[in-house]
Structures are given as structure tokens and as C-alpha cells.
């Protein structure tokens, strides 16, 4: 029962991992015998991000990211866009964490270019790719737009540049502009629609906009109501504001 053994909460509480029945052999293995392991307070709940300013992005990087995501999912008559809903903060925390470090990815060489069907083959982690591509993109903009940065361009020019990236027309110093664009778009959509605990989708506004009721787990009463509009507002993993008293 490795989770019990490693639980800081349990150690701090002085709680012994009582549920484990270890055999003598071999001493170091996690052996489970004669019972279904269970112990209180072991739920593997998610961690909400710490609010506040950027951890990963520099101010200049943040300016580009804020401007770019505001074009990918703009604020308009339908409602707020990616920037307003906190997607830059979502991206910042993702890149500062294990996703940014590619902790679950296979990152051993040899490194070779492959076909599109073989997928990602860069030695850059997502965090490294963002950092490098943002710098290169601003340098590219500066060279063709009289020293200006991406964030300072008119929105039409930003759109044109993003389209060029998407179409594979821009090389970012040896990194494919399309690879960066695809990752940025994917991560932006993730942040826009993920649970608000990760920094985006502020107040579940993106869910409300499309009609997704969120992290609900029981629709039995509504299964047979074919074609009717689901009447309840979204809830997140931390509930929704109306559930909390204003302390």
C-alpha cells in the first residue's frame, strides 16, 4: 500500500498505516494479502492551483500568450473569451508543473525527425517549447513589423500571423510553427473547458455558454426527458458559488 506509506498527511497526523498486512518475503515489496486495503482520509483529490500572478511566464511571454489566446477564443457577443476566463493562468500553471516538464513523456534519444504519423519527436518539453517558440515568434514579428511585438499588433495582423503558424508557413528557429500552434490551441481549449480549479473556465462561464452542466454525477431523473432543456446550472469539483456561504 504505497499510497499509505507515502502519505504526508498520515505521517504528520502520526497515523500508522494499519491496513497493510506485509509478509516477510520480500521485505521491500508492497504486499497485499488477506484484505481489501483501505484507510481513512486517503482520497486522491485534485489540487486547485494557487491564485495570483504568473509563475512560469515572464511579463513579455505573458503579453504574447494573453494576446494569442484572446484571438484563439475571443470575447464577443456570446460571452467572454479565453483571456477573460483565465486561460493564460491555466497555461502558466500547467507549464510550471509536471505537464510542462513532460514528466510522463518518453524523453530518451536518439532524436530523429519522423513522419506526422509518428507524432511528437522534439526533445523540448512543453515548457521549453513554449519558452523557445514565444521568443522566436516575437523575434519574427519584430523583423517583419518594424520592431514591434506580437502583443502590440492589430488584431487582424495577429490573426494573420496565427493563420500562418497554423498553415506551417513560419519556422521558429528550427521549431515548427505549426507544432507550437497546435499545442497552444490544444492547451487553450483545455484551459477554456477544464474544471475551474485549474485556473481557466472562470466561474464555469465556458460551460454555461455551451450548456454543459459540469461535474454532475447523476442524471437518472432526466434520461427519459428527450429533447428537453436541462434546467440546472453547472457545478464544478468545488461545487458552485451559490453553495458557499459568504463568510
Amino acid at each position, binding site marked *: 500500500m*504505497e499510497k499509505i506509506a507515502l502519505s504526508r498527511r498520515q505521517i504528520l497526523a502520526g497515523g500508522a498505516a494499519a491496513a497493510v498486512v506485509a509478509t516477510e518475503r*520480500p521485505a521491500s515489496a*508492497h504486499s497485499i494479502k488477506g484484505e481489501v486495503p483501505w484507510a481513512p482520509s486517503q482520497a486522491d483529490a485534485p489540487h486547485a492551483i494557487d491564485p495570483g500572478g504568473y509563475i512560469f511566464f515572464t511579463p513579455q511571454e505573458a503579453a504574447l500568450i494573453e494576446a494569442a489566446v484572446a*484571438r484563439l477564443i475571443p470575447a464577443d457577443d456570446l460571452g467572454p473569451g479565453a483571456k477573460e476566463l483565465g486561460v493564460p493562468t491555466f497555461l502558466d500553471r500547467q507549464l510550471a508543473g509536471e505537464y510542462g516538464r513532460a514528466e510522463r513523456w518518453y524523453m530518451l534519444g536518439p532524436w530523429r525527425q519522423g513522419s506526422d504519423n509518428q*507524432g511528437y519527436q522534439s526533445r523540448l518539453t512543453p515548457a521549453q517549447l513554449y519558452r523557445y517558440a514565444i521568443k522566436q515568434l516575437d523575434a519574427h514579428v519584430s523583423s517583419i513589423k518594424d520592431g514591434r511585438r506580437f502583443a502590440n499588433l492589430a488584431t487582424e495582423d495577429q490573426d494573420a500571423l496565427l493563420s500562418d503558424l497554423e498553415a506551417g508557413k513560419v519556422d521558429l528557429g528550427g521549431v515548427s510553427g505549426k507544432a507550437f500552434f497546435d499545442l497552444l490551441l490544444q492547451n487553450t481549449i483545455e484551459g477554456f*473547458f477544464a474544471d475551474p480549479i485549474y485556473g481557466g473556465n472562470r466561474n464555469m462561464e465556458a460551460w454555461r455558454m455551451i450548456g454543459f452542466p459540469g461535474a454532475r454525477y447523476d442524471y437518472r431523473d432526466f434520461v427519459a426527458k428527450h429533447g428537453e432543456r436541462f434546467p440546472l446550472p453547472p457545478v464544478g469539483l468545488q461545487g458552485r458559488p451559490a453553495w458557499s456561504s459568504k463568510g
Partner: protein
Amino acid sequence: MARKLPSIDVALVGFGWTAAMLAQEFTDAGLNVLALERGVWRDTPTDFAPTFIQDELRYYFRHELFQEASRETLTFRNNGGETALPMRHLGSFLPATGVGGAGIHWNGQTWRFLPTDFVAKSHNEQRYGKLAEGMTVQDWGVTYDELEPYYDRFEYLCGISGKAGNLNGTKQPGGNPFEGPRKRDFPNPPMDMTYAPMLFAKAAQETGHAPFPCPSANMSRAYTNPLGVQLGPCTYCGFCEKYACGNYSKASPQTTILPVLMRKPNFELRTQCEVLKVNLDNTGKKATGITYVDAQGEEWEQPADLVILCAFALHNVRLMLLSGLGQPYDPETNTGVVGRNYAYQITSAVDVFFDDKLTNTFIGAGSLGMGIDEYNGDNFDHTGLGFIGGGYIALWTTNGRPIETHPVPEGTPKWGSKWKKAVVDNYLKQCSISTHGAVMSHRGNYLDLDPFYRDVHGRPLVRMTFDFTDNEHRMSDYLTDRAAEIARAMQPREIKVSRRKGSYSIVPYQTTHNTGGAIMGDDPKTSAVNRYLQSWQAHNVFVMGACAFPQNPGYNPTGTVGALTYWAADAIRNQYLKSPGPLVQA
């Protein structure tokens, strides 16, 4: 090096569906059973609780329940002329790590294969003549009739919801008229249907098909299985595939077997123990046990009388290759057995958009849907079509999880205001018809060991050489055309047809239905295991899972994996233990 441990009766490699089923069987038979799982212990209240399992980012997009590519992945190429490169993160398929394996994050679509699927070579050759050049389709060595009681056992273990279409040879209205005969009905009635599957069923009927509720391992009502383990009714939360069920409503090892098995005195589970190889004696014809490495990096030799490979299909094949268990397959000479006939699934989709109908697909379950089977297997005449095999067509409402599921009409840009408007306009008014096609085996599609890339333990990764062939594309296009006809009969505003074009890509998610590589059969020259899943080379090694499929029919594999496991368990209990040795003479 490895320190030697006291011997055990049975060592199971991996602890997902097949290992849990076998452990239950063998402990009942009085054997001392040890399962070795490379991942951690996981269970419903602590790891999949309904207060946090509905987390799309964490579980699907950050892969929390899946295999970590950083520890072990595979290399991939479309053909032998390319250099295989590592799959650096998961994409096309999602193997698991941890107790319960992929059995905790599956959808629960639990089919039986057709009687003709088990005799695909002889049946197709008899009806259509010689197979296409390079096609290495084989008969299984086991028949549907032989497996029927074992399908039944697995369905009752899991509490499958469904409607019989053929009871003892008599067709049953409302069920799948093409299925093989069953001795009795499903243990549970079909799930309650949402709107979109009913719209599909109506259109399918109008276009001359016989729609039926798809068989589901999501509970249509509370259920107590033959082991006395209880499951709760499904709540249609729409977080099945890629997630674990927080509600004890989806059959998994945890919800059907482990509460009984884990308490038995003659069963032991060791977690974070990764098996490195199967050890063979100096004749190579008998296994002496296995060697594994634990979480501290220490190596242990575990002697065992019986070794059973119960890991995911790709991992079983790799372990055989690393252990010298069976001759590796060589596509040049078409000889050897381990790695032979790797296959997959070919899928396509037709999205359906309405102006006036709220489909609310966020109300869903992993195997909630209506399907048709007119175009599966050899249920239709293939004369002149240029392919064999087929697949089912179904409208599932598995989910409305918005990062993954926000379909937009043809021609919509991928970002910007127009994209946003299309998502907002269509999210509640769409659904999608899927086709789920067979992949026949071909000489050039196989698994072997990669010459360059290694895992965290320094062992070679498995190398996958695979592409769809003309047979798959013709078949999938045919299915997709039929799906589009039904989609139009649903009278939508518009549809979007997404065919599976060109070469196989390991990037976009398709299915975790990787099959073959250690196939079963009648001939030790062309199969790695016999009809009881027993290694032709070492009689005390058995190999479970979809790696035994000689080719991959047009259904999800788990029902057949379950049936084969009980079939093999019976042979081991009733034949092998009485007289250990080859159950079939080569």
C-alpha cells in the same frame, strides 16, 4: 543479482481483468496464487470517488490512470522501410498501469464475436475464394459454440445490460438478430436510452435495418453477481471511458472480483513489481518462474509452477520476446510466431447536427447506445466489394465532456469567433454515429523488439510495424457510407463525414483495441499458443488477452477476452492440473 524467493503455485504477470478472473478461479481450486502488478493499488472510494472523478483535464488529457510513457512506451513505424520512433506520449490507444488495468477506464462495450469470426479463414475462402495476397488471416482453433458458456459466465460476472437477439437459435425481436445463439438472456435489461440513440434507431429501422440496444457493462439496475459482489445502477454521468467509475456502476476487477479475491488467504498481490522476464529451464521447454524488479529497484527471482501472462496485449508479446518464449516472427520469410498478426481497429464517424432537437449528450454512459450489425463480419454478401470483414454501426452517447467533445460542422475554422459560435450553437444539438471496423491480419503488420530504444530498466521497447491496407479502407468506407445514409435519414440540418483516410497515425485517439502478436491456433508454426492459450514452447506458460486474436473482428474485444480467459481457466483446472503437459500435441 536477483535474490531467490520461495516457490509459488501460480505467478500472474499483471493484475487487470484476466489476472483477477484467473486468481479467483485458481484460489478456488486451492492453489497459492501470486499476482505481480507494476502499478499501484487503486480502488473506488479512494481513487475514483464521484466527488472528483469527473475531471476531464486530469484523467484524459493528463493521462493519470494510464501507462506512463516515460517508463515504458513502444516505437512505431508504418512499414519496414521506415525507422521506428518512440511514441513519446500516449495518443491512438491508452494502455494502463495499476490494479485493474485498462479494465477500470474502459467504456464497457461488451460484445460476443460472430460464429463466423472464429473461422474467418476457412469461412471466407469457402465463400469468396482465396484470401488477398499478403493477408494472414487464420482460424482461431476454438469455436463460438465452445466459447458460449464462457461468454455467458463473463457477462454474468459483469452484469451486462442488453437484449438477447438469438436464444437457442430462436430470433428475439428487439435484440441483435445476427448474434450467435445464447443459452439465456443478458443478466440485466438494456439501459434507459437517451434521445439521440432513439433517433438513430428510428432512422435505422426506416432504412431497413434492425437496431438493438448495445450490450453494456454499465449497470441498468442494481446487480449482485455470482460472487456476491454488488454493483449500483448507472447514473449516466458521462465519465466512463478514460475514467474510472465513482459509483460502482461499471464492471471492472474492482467492482466484480476484488472484494472477494483480496480476502482469500491463498492469494497475494505485490504492487509496484514489474516483471522483467519469464525464466526458462535449460531445455527452454518449461518455465521455472519469473524475475521482477520492485519499487526499490531490487530484483527478485520468483519460482512458480505455472506462469500466466496477464498484462496488456502489447506487453505480453514484449515479455515473450524478451524471454525467448517462442520464435520471433520474421515478415521476410513469414516464419516465426511471436509478434505475428498484430492488428488493430479501424473507426470512422458521422457527426449529425440538428437545428431543432436538444440531444444533451452530456447525459451518457460508456456503452449507452443503439447499434446495427447488418454490416459486420460476414452478415452481408461481400461479392464484388473487394474486402472481407465488417463492423458494427452505432450511435453511442458516451459523453459531452467539452474539451474532448465539441463537434462543429464541416468547414468551420479551428479557432476564432466563428469556431466559438459553432461550438456554442451545436454543443447541445449534435450526436455522432460511429463505425467500428475489423482489421484483418497482414504479413507486414507485426511486433518485434526495437534495436535502439529502451525502457527505464534498459530493456528494448517493443516495435510496432503497422498500417491499414486496402481491405480496411474499402471496408471502412463501405461502413461509413452506410452510416451516412442513416445519418441523413435522421433528418438533421447537416452531417459531417469523417472517414479514416490514408496511413495509420499513432497520434489521434482511436481505440485501445490492440490485438495479435501471440495468437492462438492449431499449428505451432503459425501460432504462439494453442487453443487453450498455452504456449506451444513451454507448457506451463499461458498467455491471456487480445494478443491471442489471430485478427481483429468488428467488435470491442473485452467480451471475448473474458470468454477466452474462463475457457483457458477451465482447461487448466480440469485438464492441466491433473496432468501437467501440453494440452494439445504439436
